[in-house]
Structure formats: structure tokens, C-alpha cells
């Protein structure tokens, strides 16, 4: 596409130059009335060329625009999924009503966007041992994964892992921090 435009532009430049050269002799005479007549052809050609390239160009821009919009839409969806953590009660891995509502929304997106591959990370708060918390995080991520599968998301697109207490979202040793860290978090990648 770019090459075509370039060639077209070069063509017009050559035409203009040729026209300029031919016009070199009567330089002293401005001849304002006759001037538009002589280059009428080349101006016409130029207009035609410009019209052609513009339409090709705008097609490309429209395509880019569409892709950009699609990308932005996916990005927004991914962000929405990744921002929405599923929270759990202390030392529990059952889904709360809130969690189920949120997961239904996530599942809805995933059912429609079949290219999304999702890693469900299970996390715990800082209380307890590293070892036990990895097993607790695994239970949480699996519960979330199974909910999504039950909703109709392809199991092959869902991976569950546990981080235990190793990656807290919020630092702190009070219930506010703990409650934000007892979560399942989504990581999304797009299957190319």
C-alpha cells in the first residue's frame, strides 16, 4: 500500500517538474489567464491520483482503527478480569455469594472470548505457615477454575496455580490487609 502511494506521488512530482520545465521559457510573462488551461490535464491526473491513494489510505486507517478498537476492547476485558479478584473467608476455599456473582461475569467474558487463556492464582493472607498456605491457595484456585468450567469455559484454557502467602496484594498485619490478600487472581494471555 505504501509503495503504491509513493509511486503515485513520485509520478505526480515528475509530471509537475516536466510541466515546470516546459513553462520555463515564458518565465517573464506571467500569463495568468492561459496558465490554468495548460496544466489542466496534469491537475486532473493529480486529483485522480490523490483520490485513489486517499481511499486506499483510509481503508488502511480504518482497518488499523478497527484493530485498535478490538485490541482496546480486549485489553479492557482483560483488565476487568485481572482487576476483579475473588475473595475468600479466613482459612476457607468455598465461594461466597459475592464471589459467585463476580465469577459469573468473568465466565461470561471467557465463554465469548475463546482466545483468552487464564491462569487462576490462589493466594492466602500472611497468617500460618508457607507450606499449609500453598495447599490452601491451591484449593482456592481450583474452586475458581472448577466454577468457570461448570459455567462452560473450556477446561484447557484454565490453569490453576498456588502462590500461598508469597505474593500479598496489600502489605499489613490487620484484617483489612488480610481480607484483600485472601484471593484468587486472574492472569490472562491471548492464544495467538
Amino acid at each position, binding site marked *: 500500500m505504501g509503495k503504491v502511494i509513493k509511486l503515485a506521488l513520485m509520478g505526480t512530482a515528475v509530471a509537475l517538474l516536466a510541466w515546470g520545465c516546459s513553462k520555463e521559457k515564458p518565465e517573464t510573462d506571467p500569463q495568468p489567464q492561459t496558465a490554468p488551461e495548460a496544466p489542466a490535464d496534469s491537475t486532473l491526473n493529480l486529483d485522480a491520483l490523490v483520490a485513489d491513494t486517499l481511499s486506499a489510505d483510509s481503508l488502511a486507517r480504518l482497518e488499523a482503527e478497527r484493530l485498535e478498537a478490538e485490541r482496546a476492547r480486549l485489553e479492557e476485558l482483560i483488565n476487568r478480569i485481572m482487576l476483579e479478584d475473588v475473595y475468600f473467608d479466613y482459612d476457607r476455599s468455598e465461594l461466597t455469594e459475592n464471589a459467585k456473582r463476580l465469577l459469573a461475569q468473568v465466565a461470561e467474558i471467557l465463554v465469548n472470548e475463546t482466545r483468552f487463556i487464564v491462569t487462576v492464582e490462589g493466594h492466602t493472607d500472611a497468617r500460618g*505457615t508457607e507450606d499449609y498456605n500453598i*495447599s490452601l491457595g491451591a484449593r482456592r484456585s481450583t474452586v475458581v477454575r472448577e466454577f468457570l468450567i461448570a459455567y462452560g469455559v473450556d477446561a484447557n484454557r484454565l490453569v490453576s496455580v498456588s502462590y500461598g502467602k508469597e505474593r500479598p496484594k496489600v502489605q499489613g498485619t490487620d484484617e483489612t490487609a488480610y481480607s484483600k490478600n485472601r484471593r484468587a487472581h486472574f492472569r490472562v494471555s491471548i492464544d495467538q
Partner: protein
Amino acid sequence: MNKIKLLFVLVAMALAVPAFAAIDTIAVDVGISVFQTMPIGVVPFEENGNIKWTNEAPHLILTRDANLTGRFEAVNSDKFDLVLFSKKRARQYVTGNATKLSNGKIKLDCYLYASETKDVLLGESYTVKPYDVRQAVHSFFDKVVYRLFGERGVASTKLAYVSKIDGVKQVVISDYDGFSRRQITRDSSINMMPVWQKGNKGLVYVNFRKQRPNLYAITFGGKETPLFTQFKQTFSPAVNPKTGELLFSVTEGAKTELYRGDMKTGSAQKFLHLKSNQVSPSWSPFASEVLFTSDRGGSPQVYAVGKDGTDVRRITYMGHYNERASWSPEGDRIVYTSMDDGKMNIYTCALDGTDIIQLTSNAGNNEHPTWSPDGKLIAFASDRGGNYQIYIMRKDGSGVTRITNGSENTSPTWSWFFDEKKFK
């Protein structure tokens, strides 16, 4: 709990006092220590030549070893002082000569004397580079322990633990007293749960570079091998003290179970067939039994099972969160972490779960206990000082000493005994 403690102390004192009074003193720190310590004189070395010690002079290393290993109480004196040593009942003392050699090395002649007769009970000579003075002195101290107690000392042992370096959890090792620290892992994800391979040949640890917990073996030269790659998520390693075989947790779906595997061949079999989750395995000293944590009662509790996976029995009943049990090298007690009201504390109990003693209290969180290979000491991590650091205490909870500082240090694991180091 306090009643149990008090009872234990009273019984122990009643038993211990008549037996030892004639020989040694019995230290009863803040009413809970039943550890008997032996006073030992420590006199600075005579120095020949202008010696610059890398970090501490030999008598300071010996003083720290004496107090930290839990067996002694150092009686320091600038020179031999029979009056002081007699008054403090230090029947032996340690000292020596240090000579700077022309090749830059230091010759250390270390002696253990009987205070009254000045008989040499033990003499050792080491010619070492300045940096190795510490290790040579530790080595001598272990010989002193052997000479006086007939048991192996822990001054030459090491700890592996997790240290936050530039915000990343890395595995490091150091001498048991926190000195001579060395970073072992370099990966920028998460490195954790280090344990020592049999014969201290290297470590096994957990790394998250694949965005999931996986076991790796690493040598002290930094050579790494992924372990048991047939499983997606592996953690909680425990090394069999007899065979070097590993017990570890495998997570598949919601289920976490124990497997036993051979590090060399990579083959692994399910260890237990239980409906519940299982983490934190620990072998008994002779590898005939295994402790582990299971949530089969609805909350994490400690269980024991035979090495063939049969005869599961519950050990802990008190409280709702008992985890990370490990078997004393002496074989008679179990140390574990218990969480009460969101705070972690360290307890020991007898093998049947009775005779519970709380070792830490009212001092932040205290967790991840690990026995010294002689069973006299317990290293653990505590945030009592603001951030997490490694501490050592005697097995009765007395003599708590911090051995690390700086940014967060957690999850200590004590090495096995080292073969005697040869100094050239």
C-alpha cells in the same frame, strides 16, 4: 499451659538437682530453663606479630560458641585467674597462641586446660588464611565439646534460610552463628523452603520461575537441577537422613499429597493414600517414621505415620492450627508451630502428643523451628524485633539469641553435621 510448664520444671528440677548438683550448676533462667550449663573459662590468645582478625579475635568466637551452643556458660578473663574460675566453677578453660606467618597465614594453637592442675586436656593446631580463622576456631570448639561431653558439637554446622535481597526472597547459607553468610540462589522470582541434602552436598528448595512452586536441587557452586518435573506444583521438601530420599508435597487440582522420590532418577510414588491434604513432612532421626500435617480433621494438625505409609496417628489435639512438626535428633520430642489468635508460637511435645511445652510467647510471631543436629538447640524465625529475623534458643526455650539482622530473614533449616574440615 502454664501449669504443665511449671509441673515440668518442678519435676525436672526434682530429678536433675540431686544428680548434677555435685558436678555442675543448673541454670534456671526466668523460671523455665532446665538446661544445665557448664561454666568454662575463656582467656584471650597470646598474639605473636601484628594480627588483624577478619571479624573477631579467637577468644570472642569461643565465647560466642560456648554461650550459643547451649552447653556452656563462658567465664571471661583477660588472663588465667584461678580464683575467678574456681568461684565460677569453671573447671576447664580454653585459650591459645596465634602467630602471624610470613606467608600471610595465621598459626593457631588452641588448648583446653584443666583450671586447677593446668593439665592440657586437648591441644589442636591450625595454620589457616585469616578468613578461615573462624572455621578453625569452631572446629576446635567442637573438639572441646567432644572431649568434655563425648558428643558432637554444632559449632561447625550451618544454617540455610531465606533472605529478602533487593525485595526478592533468596536462599542463603551461613555458619550456625549467622556469620560467613553466602547467597546461593540468584533467580528473581521467589526462592524458598531450603533443606539440606544428605551429607550437606547441596540444598533442595522451591522456586517460582515457572509461575508455580517447583522443587530444585542446587549445589553450593550454583549448579541447579529441576526435580520431579512430572508434577506441576511441588514444595515442602524433607530429606531422609539415612537414604537422602525426598518426601515432598505435590499439588494437583485442589489436592495436595505427599510423595516420596529419588532425586537422582526422578521417580516418585505417592506416599500416603488419604482423602485429606498433606504438607510439611519430617523424618524421624532414623527414618523409621514420618511426621506431617493434614487437614483431615478440618484444621491443620500434626500426624505421624510409619515410613511405609501405614499406621497413621494424630499427634496434636490442642488448638486449631498445628503445623510444621519436626522430630528431635535425640528422638524424644517433636517441635511444631501453633497458631492461636493469629499469632504463631513454637511448642514441643512428647511423641504421643502429651507433655506440651510452649517455648515462645508474647514476642510477635515465632515460626519455622528447626533442630540443631545435636538436638540441643532450635533455630526459628521471629518478627519480635519489628521484622523477621533468625533466632536460636535452647530446646527448653531459654537463651534466645538473634543471629541475623538487616532485611527480612525467614525459614531457617539447620544442616546435618559436617565431616571434619581439613585445614591445610
